[in-house]
Structures are given as structure tokens and as C-alpha cells.
């Protein structure tokens, strides 16, 4: 099937199998490998991207369902004047170790801060509760998102 999709502001047209998952479109066809894949059951969240601004698990979305819509991935976080505060927050507070869950965590964090610029620890924990990290025990992810909020408030 012919799809057209906007990813990080760029338009792509592709002829894809109807069963192709969005995560595989991004990774294998568009070569945007910053979005990861980690489970068969939509439980892990390493695949989270923003679809029309809303976090979705890209392993549960068919590429054809994303046709005509806007996707934002980790590759689209950095701004012309430097890192997004979320990226800087994760660096500053050691919010990542192996880096595998990080893209998904940051995309959710970006969405959270867009809607709630001053989230509490509890709100951050709830926002990322559908995503698993095996390395950080979440503590520094929470601190990273707080740090991002501070950076954003300061800028």
C-alpha cells in the first residue's frame, strides 16, 4: 500500500505491506534506528514515538495507520540551537545507562512537559509507567525529567 507520512518534519512516501508495523517502517525502511523494539506484547515501551503529538507504542501501530500523520522520533528532538532540555536533562542526571529504553522515555517526557511543565515525581512516574527500564531503577529517569523541567523553566 502507498503511504505518505511526515517524520520529524520530513515527508516520506513508501509502498509498504499492510501488515508492516510503524516501528519497522521507521527502523528498517526509513533507517531511523533511534526508536527501538523490545517485546512482542506492547509491554516495554522502548518503541514510543509521538504520533500527532501523542505518545504511542510504535509496535502497536501499523505503518498504514500512520499515513497522512505526523510522527516525531528521538532523532527529531534536537533543536537547531542545541539539545532539547529533555536530552540535556537525561545527560545531567544520568537518566540512561545502556540507552535502549532512553528514546521512548525521552519521547514520553517531551509529551509530559509539553502538557505539564512542572510535573511532580508522582506525575512523572505515572507518565512512564507503561515503559520498562532494566538499568536505572527509574530514579534517575525521574530526576532527569525534573531537570528537564527546570532547564525549560530557566530558558
Amino acid at each position: 500500500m502507498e503511504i505518505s507520512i511526515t517524520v520529524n518534519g520530513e515527508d516520506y512516501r513508501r509502498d509498504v505491506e499492510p501488515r508492516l508495523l510503524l516501528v519497522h517502517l521507521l527502523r528498517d525502511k526509513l533507517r531511523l534506528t533511534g526508536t527501538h523494539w523490545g517485546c512482542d506484547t506492547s509491554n516495554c515501551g522502548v518503541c514510543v514515538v509521538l504520533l500527532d503529538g501523542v505518545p504511542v507504542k510504535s509496535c502497536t501501530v501499523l505503518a498504514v495507520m500512520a499515513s497522512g500523520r505526523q510522527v516525531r522520533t528521538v532523532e527529531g528532538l534536537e533543536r537547531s540551537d542545541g539539545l532539547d532540555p529533555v536530552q540535556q536533562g537525561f545527560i545531567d542526571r544520568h537518566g540512561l545507562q545502556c540507552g535502549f529504553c532512553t528514546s521512548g522515555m525521552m519521547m514520553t517526557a517531551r509529551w509530559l512537559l509539553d502538557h505539564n511543565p512542572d510535573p511532580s515525581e508522582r506525575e512523572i512516574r505515572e507518565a512512564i509507567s507503561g515503559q520498562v527500564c532494566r538499568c536505572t531503577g527509574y530514579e534517575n529517569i525521574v530526576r532527569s525529567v525534573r531537570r528537564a523541567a527546570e532547564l525549560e523553566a530557566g530558558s
Partner: protein
Amino acid sequence: MTATQIPARVPTPTPTPVGYGSIPRKEDARFVRGRGSFVDDVQLPGMLYGAVLRSPYAHARIVSVDISAAEVHPKVRAVITGDMLDKRGMAWMPTLFGDVQAVLATDKVRFQGQEVAFVVAEDHYAARDALSLIEVEYEPLPALVDAKLALAPDAPLIRDDLDGRTDNHVFDWSAGNKAATDDAFATADVVAECEILYPRVHPAPMETCGAIASLDRVSGKLTVYATSQAPHAHRTMYAQVTGLPEHKIQIIAGDIGGGFGNKVAIYPAYVCAIVGSILTGCPVKWTEDRSENLMSTAFARDFHMHGEIAATSDGKILALRANVLADLGAFNGTAQPTKFPAGFFHMFTGSYDIAAAHCEVRSVHTNKAPGGVAYSCSFRIAEASYLLERMVDVLAHDLGMDPAQLRMRNLLRPEQFPYTCATGWEYDSGDYPTTLRLALEMAGYDELRREQAARREGGGDAPLMGIGLSFFTEAVGAGPRKMMDILGLGMADGAELRLHPTGKAVLRLSCMSQGQGHATTFAQIVSQELGISPDDIEVVEGDTDQTPFGLGTYGSRSTAVSGGAAVVVARKVRDRARIVAAAMLEALPDDLEWAEGRWQVKGVPSTGKAIAEIATAAHSGLELPEGVEGHLDATTVYNPPNLTYPYGAYVCVVDVDPGTGQVKVRRFVAVDDCGVRINPMIVEGQIHGGLADGVGMALMELMAFDANGNHLGASFMDYLLPTSMECPSWELGQTVSPSPHHPIGAKGIGESATVGSPAAVVNAVLDAIGVRHADMPLTPAHVWRAMQGRALRTDVALE
């Protein structure tokens, strides 16, 4: 003492300060941009994709495998079966413990999820499609699921592939002094016993396992991109399996999305990808899905333990005994030093002064996946520590003593170090009582007990409050070559350090980060020794063509062994720099001193030469003394003199809903002593992750099997991992007892919290519900049953 503050953004271009400290990680720049290079991110020209057909049965004879329909699928390029491999002598491969494991089954399948056939196709959807075109006829056999029945006379024989094998017994092993232990038990005032299971769990890193094999038919060179915690050991093993010469094999482990022991072994599908590349002449990528990961790759633990502890009536522990039944699954794929078939389990006297101890471990095969030594277990010290910390609580329960007091009474005292325990381990350093006191103080232990007493008084439907302790000691950094090898490969690590003419450095190591931040920590180690910024030191690891030989990263051995190598090699460079500086200053090397990161004439700081200047001179035409070569490079092999012994004291506070058995971890205090901390921020991150593991294993993670050997935890819907909601905000503290034999006194931290935390959580839950023992995972259902006095086995669902 509070947790170390992580510094705010260090604005570039200010150079990162020399030496140790909480500096941001070098690795992060690529990950936060989505620019990591994990194996599934690698795309080679002409690459094909593999998929594995797996057995639906736990135990069955293979009658026939018909691949004809799959072979004619338009996108399929090759289909590989066990019989085809057998003709090449590759149907079986060695495991990490000298057993063999089927690459693709020829005779029987021995666990659910075992590899039966491998398809190579043009894309991974097509490869998966083709799997359904393969017809396998099985003759199901009775499955052996319960390890306790493995040696029954009517148990099905699993390993009939091995000549002369008549039962499912693998090995018996023992350690300690039996006579002295029996004597102590015979005369003790009190003996407490308990059956304790450390259930089968899975490391489940967020990135599953995978490999890309690419054989160049012209040069004969095989390149394998792989999720490998031990690239050099993998190269040697591939040489053995494939018959290719070792110098024609290159392993490239790029970024690894978590390992935790899951990526130490070589898995059958890696070998299949190699064969696929040999057959097609194209690179072949294989990455497993999550169910494959949970069903077929290295699980951990599965120790059925019987513990006994002997003590005086006032709580002095006299002796310890353990009888263990280890379920290894269908093949013995345990990864640990050869001399220790049960790993380091016999370090089970832990942190206490126990005069006599004896343990016996018997291991058996069952119809389950192979593995056992993984999930940050420090070669089975996880099992030992859990057993002991549970037994101490059981003793406290029987004696009616406070578990903190009982521990304090029996902890090793500082003046006993170096201390040789009853089973022969030589502990290097520690001040245990201080660490425990700090943990109790941070937790507000007495106040917590008062709150608990008040709550109990109150009764009613209020949550039940529990306080759990654990005090663990690990032995990590395997290990001295004389005692420790894996498959005959001694466990020493190489290091190479090269200084460029401008004074920038490249450090090449054999270990392999899976998120531990090696690029940062090891640069800091060299930085401290040479007085140059970590920014100026590039750390290379993971590519066997670029790095010296060594055994890899697991068992918390990176800082302890490769870290030692990094120090030694940097000091070699520094010593050579002294000779060059002497030539520069027209002085004698003996007249120089190393001060503030420079070589200077003793007492004359103005003469100081920094390493960068010396490096430039070393590459110049400067005349050097007779016999001194130019340049500023060095290599070393670090053979650790002993293991290092990190330890810690943990306190967990839980609330249990009496109606549902639901556990909420309210607080978790962790005081770790891992010797000198190079990057405290990274150390604390390692601890956080391990604490989450403990919450997961204690409360959620469950891999049970039904009577037919069906794996009941084969997806993340059933194998539950802790999320941000189950984890509390960790409260960390530290004490520092440097290792006297490690060149910078560091001990290693990677696995401490995973080893130490499960017991604290379980002890807290059982303290809350007033039950002497119940097995992990303490899911609401299991807690509720335990509260009714009807605890069930958690490992099997036999009805």
C-alpha cells in the same frame, strides 16, 4: 551521609576535570540523539534475515522435518535443519561449562522453545512467514518439569545423546568442613531449618539477543556483530565450533542494550546465522523476539535449597549447612570458572563470623532451557546470599530476636580482616558494623519498629507494615588465573594504552560495556594516573580486532580486573614518561618526582612536564638513553591477586494490603561499600538498577512451568518486570573500605544490589505478615496464600 549530587551540565568547551568524580558520561551524546549502534541497527549491503523454528514441546522425538514448502517460498534463500548441520559436524556446540548443546535438534527436542530449523530470507517478515511452511512431525515424550523428580527411577531420560547416560544427574559438589559442621550442629542450643527456593528468573535486558554473521568468501574472514558480553571468548568458541581459524574471526559488539549475564553465552541461532552466511555468501542478521529471549536464552537461579543454621540460644551463630538441588535445564550451560560447578555458592557464610560450614550441591537436568548463571548473580552468590539472609531471619523468628540485633551480633569485625571464611574465601577488607549502623540510622530503624508496633496494636484493615534487612558480601573480579578459567581460558584481562604525539590517548580493553559507562569510567582511571582530562582519552572495546584478549564483562569483573589492567598500563606509560622527561630536563629519572600530574625535578615545580609535552617529545628526535625506545605506548595483562569483596547493608520497608496480599515498597535504604568509587554518579546508577531487580524478583518475576513443560512466563504479559510504579525512590548511602590488593582500591559494583536486595524485600514482606517463610515471587496471590498458612510452590503449576 547523603547520596552524591550529580553535577549540573558541564558546559563545553571547559575540559572535564582530571581524575575521579561524578562527571557526565561520554556515551550519552549518541544515545540521547538516537544514534547508538545496537546490533539490530546495523544494516549491511545485501543482508538477509534469519528466523528460528522452535519446538512447541518440552520433550519430543523428532520424526521428520519437511522443509520443501519453505524452500520454494519466493523470498527464502536457505533453510537449515539439524541434519544438514550434522553433515558438517555442527549440529552440536560446546556450552560454557564443557557440556554440549544442540544447535538445531536432530534426535529430540529437550525444552519448549528449542531450536529446530533456521530460515534465511530477504526480509524478516518473510523469514517468519516461511517458518509456518516447515512441517515437523514430533513424537511427544513425557516432560520432566519438577527438578525434585529428576532422579526418580521412572523419570524420563533427557540426555540420551550422551553415551552411557542412564539418569538426569549432572554433578554433585561440596565445600566446607562436614565433620566440624556436624559437630557444631550436634551440640548447638538451637537449630533452624528451612526449605527455600530461589526460583527461575530471567535477566531480560531491554534489547534481546542477536547477531549478524558475514563471511567474506574471498578472504575467508568471518565478521560477527553480536550482543556479546565476552567478545574474545566468543571468538575462540566460534573457532572451535566452525573450524575457521581464529585470526580470521572478528567479533564486533557495538552498543549493547543491557546484558546482566544474558549475553555471555553463544546461542544456537548465532551459529545458524554463520552457517546461513556460509551458504548464501551474504551477511545474515538474526535478532530474537521477546518470547524467544525468555524461553530459550540464559535464565538464572533455579536453586532448591535446604538451609540449616545452628546457634546458641542468645543468638551466636555457630554453623551453617546447605543442601541444594540445582535445576540446570536440558544442557549444562552454566557460565562460571571451571573449578566451581556451582559457581561461588560456597561463599554462603556471607558477612558473618561462622566457624563451621558445609554445603552440598546436586544438579540435574530437566526439560527446560539451559542457563542458570546470569542476572547479575556474581556466580551464584545471589543464591548464597539470599539463602543466608533468609536463614538469619528464620533464626531471628525462632529465637524471637530482632533481626538487626542478630545480624550485628554475628557480623565479622573489622579486626578480623583479611578474613578466611570456613569455605576458604579470603575477604580483603571491610568494616561491616559501621555499614549496618549507617543503614539502620538512615532508615530510622528504631522509629520504624515503634511505628510497626503501634500499627499492630491498632489492628483492623490497615496495611501491615514490614521491615526487612539484608547484609551481603560478594566475591567479584574473577579471577586469579591459577584458580579461574572458563573453557580453559584464564580470567586475566589485557589492556593497551597508546599516547598520540599530541598527548591524546587511546585505551583498548577486553571487557564490554552493556550500559555500565566504561567509556567514561576507564577514561577517568587513566586520567587520574596521567593527569590528562578524560576528554582526551578514548576507550575502545568490543571489537576483537582492535582490543587485547580478555574474558569480558560479567560477574562484576570490569572494574576489578580490566580496571586493574587500565591502572597498571597507565602507570607503565607514566614510568616511561619519566625517562623521557628526564631526557627533556637533562636530569636523571631518579631525580624526578610525579606531582600534580607532571614529572618535575624534585622540589622544583617550575620544571614540570605534563604528559602531553612528554608525549610530543617521545615522538620527536629527542635523544633517549641507551635501550629506551621512543613513543609512549604500553601493554599489560592484569592477573588479579585475589577477588574483591564488596558488601552492603539494605533496609526495606513495605506495606501489605491484608485483604489482597498486594505489597507496596514504601522505602528502600541501601548502603554499599564497593571500595573506592571512580564515578560516584555511575556507581549509584548501578545500585539503583540492581535494587529494582530485587523488587522485581521478590515480588513479580515468575517463570513457572506446567506439567507438560509449557513455559508460563514467556512474554512480558506474564513475566512481569518492575516499573516506575513498583519502585520507590531509592535512598543510598556509602562507606568506603578500599581493597588492599586492587591497584586503586576499587572493588566493583555492577551486581551488588541485585545480589543483596531480594532478601531485604522478602524479609520485609514476611515480617509484615508474620510468616516464617514463603517463596519468591511474593505476588499478591502468593502473599495471600502464605497469610492463610497455605503457601504454594511458585515454580511449577502441576495441576
